Structure formats: structure tokens, C-alpha cells
């Protein structure tokens, strides 16, 4: 009974942080990529965002502050819009002086799956949908297209605030739930993500042949009479897999772009596309 009200009113009773401060944590999470490097990715920005809170918690404990800063400088890479949850969670634990090893373990258990989920949702689902709809409005010169896009992302920006509160309020209670499910969730996010990528390949890669082969009465339009009859978007799919195969052979991505350009220009020159 006690523990229930306990967590419900945490913000009011125990917390040393005001509601406003937690909101600010959400805002500060926007800087996780500030000092991005491949070596440790979000580590410095991640540390920076939480720093003022640790300063408050470890006001009289410089050792503690040093420890927590060092701990958080380890490699971390997750989905930016989901950091507020993670940070809120970690902050509530830090505040309760949970053992630092536990916190580290939790952080490491969570950021990976969260990256997968976040990417599936934000990069592969929301962005192409909102982008696609806005673009189709904008293509006719209607300024409501970009405005719509902006408003949606302003809303997503704002969600960082409630997400920070969510993470902070759930606190340790949330951990078991998330940890138990993290493997399944990243599995499930992959399913969603790859389905959408399949759809994106069909929707956004544009390759159509314009040549006809044969002679005399036996002429066929390669694209419309052969390829499109086999399967629409066959070329885009095949080309993506060609590039995929090249990447698997450790070809540098820069080459893929060059190959793409070369192909397009050659095709244009030959009049095949």
C-alpha cells in the first residue's frame, strides 16, 4: 500500500527535482549527438545532458560526481527521441543511489533494443509517411506541405518532455518490464522495420527501362511487356540487393554512390532509361 502511493507521489514528496527540471532533462536530451564520434558515439552528449542533475545529487560528494561522469562516458548509441525515457529512468535510480554496477548493466541492456525500436518507428515509419504525405502536398507548390511536416516534428520534439517524466516516474519499476521484454521487443521491431523497408524499396527507388528489344513484328517493350509482367519494381529490388551484396563484400559505400551515378549516366547515354 505504502509503496504504491510512494511511487505515485514521488515527484512531490521524495524527489529533489522539480517538475520543471525533469522537463528540462527532456529538452537537454536533444544534445546527445553534440560531440558524436564513431569511437563512443553519444557518450559526451549523453553525459552533458544529465550533468546538472548529478551536480545536484552529488553536491557534497565530488568523488560521486567523478564516478558517475566517468561511468557515463562509455560508448552508447541509441535512438535520439527515446533518450528522455532512458535518462529519466537512470536519473531516478541515481537519485535513489542504486548500486552503480546495476545502473551500468541496465543502461547497456536497454540502449541497443531502444535503438532498434526507435529506428523502426522514427526513421522507417514516421519519417517516410509524414515526409511522403507532406511532399505530395508540396509538389504542387502548396506551402501547407512543409508546414504540416514542421508541425508533426514540433509535436515529436515536444514529446521528449512527457517521455522524460515517464522514465523518471516509472523509475526502477519500469526496469524489469523493459529488461524482460527487450529481446522480444527488438525482435518485433526488426519485423516492423524490415517490412517497412521492403515497402520503401518498392515506393522510393525509381528504375524503369525505356528500351524495346526484338525486331520486325516481334518487338517487346522490356519494361512494360516483360519486367512489369513478372513483378512490378523488379529492377529496384534487384538493384538494392546488388548493392547489398557489394556491401557484404566490404565495398565502401562511397563506391555504391559512384556506381549508381555511373549506371544512371550510362543508361541515359544509351537511351535505355
Amino acid at each position, binding site marked *: 500500500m505504502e509503496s504504491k502511493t510512494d511511487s505515485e507521489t514521488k515527484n512531490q514528496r521524495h524527489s529533489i527535482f522539480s517538475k520543471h527540471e525533469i522537463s528540462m532533462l527532456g529538452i537537454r536530451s536533444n544534445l546527445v549527438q553534440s560531440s558524436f564520434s564513431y569511437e563512443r558515439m553519444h557518450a559526451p552528449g549523453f553525459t552533458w545532458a544529465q550533468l546538472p542533475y548529478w551536480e545536484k545529487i552529488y553536491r557534497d560528494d565530488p568523488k560521486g560526481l567523478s564516478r558517475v561522469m566517468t561511468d557515463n562516458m562509455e560508448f552508447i548509441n541509441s535512438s535520439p527521441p527515446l533518450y528522455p525515457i532512458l535518462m529519466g529512468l537512470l536519473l531516478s535510480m541515481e537519485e535513489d543511489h542504486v548500486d552503480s554496477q546495476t545502473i551500468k548493466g541496465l543502461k547497456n541492456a536497454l540502449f541497443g533494443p531502444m535503438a532498434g525500436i526507435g529506428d523502426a518507428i522514427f526513421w522507417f515509419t514516421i519519417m517516410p509517411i509524414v515526409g511522403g504525405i507532406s511532399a505530395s502536398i508540396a509538389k504542387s507548390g502548396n506551402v501547407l506541405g512543409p508546414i504540416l511536416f514542421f508541425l508533426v516534428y514540433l509535436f515529436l520534439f515536444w514529446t521528449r518532455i512527457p517521455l522524460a517524466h515517464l522514465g523518471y516516474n516509472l523509475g526502477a519499476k519500469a526496469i524489469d518490464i523493459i529488461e524482460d521484454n527487450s529481446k*522480444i521487443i527488438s525482435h518485433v521491431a526488426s519485423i516492423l522495420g524490415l517490412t517497412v523497408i521492403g515497402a520503401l524499396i518498392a515506393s522510393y527507388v525509381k528504375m524503369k527501362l525505356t528500351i524495346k528489344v526484338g525486331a520486325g513484328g516481334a518487338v517487346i517493350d522490356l519494361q512494360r511487356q516483360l519486367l512489369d509482367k513478372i513483378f512490378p519494381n523488379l529492377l529496384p529490388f534487384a538493384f538494392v540487393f546488388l548493392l547489398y551484396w557489394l556491401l557484404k563484400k566490404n565495398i565502401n559505400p562511397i563506391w555504391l554512390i559512384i556506381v549508381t551515378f555511373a549506371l544512371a549516366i550510362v543508361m541515359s547515354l544509351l537511351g535505355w532509361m
Partner: protein
Amino acid sequence: MEITFIQGLLIAIWAMIAGLDCWLQAFFIFRPIIVCTITGLILGDLKMGVIAGGLTELAFAGLTPAGGTQPPNTVLCGIMTVVVAYTNNIAPQTAIGLSLPFAMLMQYILLIYYSSFSLFLPTFDRYAEDGNAKAFKRLNLVPMAIVTLSFGIVAFLSAYAAQGPMRTLVNSMPHWLTHGFELAGGILPAVGFAMLLKVMLKARYLPYLLLGFVVASMIPFSNVLPVALVGAVFAMIEFYHSKDEEKTRAKIKELEANNQGGGMNDGI
């Protein structure tokens, strides 16, 4: 038409704002649909900016930076598509292809930063060990400043300083080349998807990739939401299956543990 010095400056400032957002991924004003619109506004041709924004947004849909990769830069591509279309009086569709080299230039600059900014890490580490919050916060501003400045400089040079040679180049380009650039713009998302697949595709997820591809190819709908929902349906079904399986597996583990425990007890 020509770009005035003031316009060049305004573009540089806008590039710095959008570029910083691109680095941080905060407001998503770094996406072509916004970048083109504002650039059009600066050049006094809002409508063309909006149209270019729509077209460029679609061409860049697949080129996400997910997983820490760097696609051709959307800020430079957006700015230059509008600039090239404006200064050379050509269709935005063709301008996309011509703006790609600039986008790739910026992509490589950012890639160099992604690699070289690890040079800051030892200093960060030292401040962390010292618990020196103030210095840490200050240092964190440096990479952002470098990135922001770079965007400004590159955009200014590309949009203002290079417009003369640019125009000469465009005028001297044969049709097959500009058409080739157009085609490249349409094919380019393939690169992004291939990179995604390298990160995400495991044999067990192949059916879902195929599912998305087939459904999207078969239903004549203008966005991928229906397919995303189908993906969500399969994901949710799988979620509950996995839950059930997990329970079974947990029970089996328990039994195994009991068994071994029993065995040990026997030994006593």
C-alpha cells in the same frame, strides 16, 4: 538569375541553423522539405522552393543516418537544388541530380568529423575524472561550433561563390548527362536501403522484407502506412507468440535446474 551577396549570406546563416539541427537531429528542419522551402523564401521564389522540397524529400526518403551512418547531406542538397534551379532557370527535378555532388561533399566532411572528433574524448575523460562539470560543458560546445561553421562556409561557397562556374558547367552539360543526373536522383535511395539492410537483415527477417515489398507493390496507395500497419500486425502476432514461447522455455529451464539439483542431492 544571380544570387546577391546578401542572399548568399542569408543562405549561409540558414545553412548553419539547419546544419546544426542535422547534426543533432532535434527539430528535423534539416529535411529537404523544410530546407528547400526556406531557401526558396530567401531567394524570393517560395513556390519553387516548396515544389523542390517535395521532390527532394521523396528522393531522400531512404537515405537515413540510422545506425550512425552518413548519407549525402540533406541540408546541402536542399539548398543547392533550389539554388541551381534558380540560378540556371532549370526544373527542380533536374537540379536534384546536380546538387548531389554538394550533398556528398558535406557528407564527407561530416564523416571526417565523425572520425576525428574522437580526439576530444581524452579531454572529456579527464574532465569527467576530475568531476569538472563546468569545463566538460564548455568543451561540449566546441564540436557543435565546428560543425555549424562548416555548414555556413560550405553553403556560402557553394551557393554564392561557385555560381559562375556552376552556370557554365550546367550550360555546357549535354542532355544525356542532366537526364543521367535525374535518373541517379531516382535510384539513389537504393544506396540507403542497401546500407540499412546490411545492418538489419538477418535470414529470419527476410520474409518480412519480402512481405513489405510485395504488399507495397500490389496496393496502389501513396504512402507506406498500410504496409507499416501490416508489418505491425505481424510484429504484434509474433510478440505474443514469443511471449508464450518464452514462458515455455522458462519452464523447461526450471525443470533442468530441478533435475540437476536433484542429481546433486542424490550425490550427497
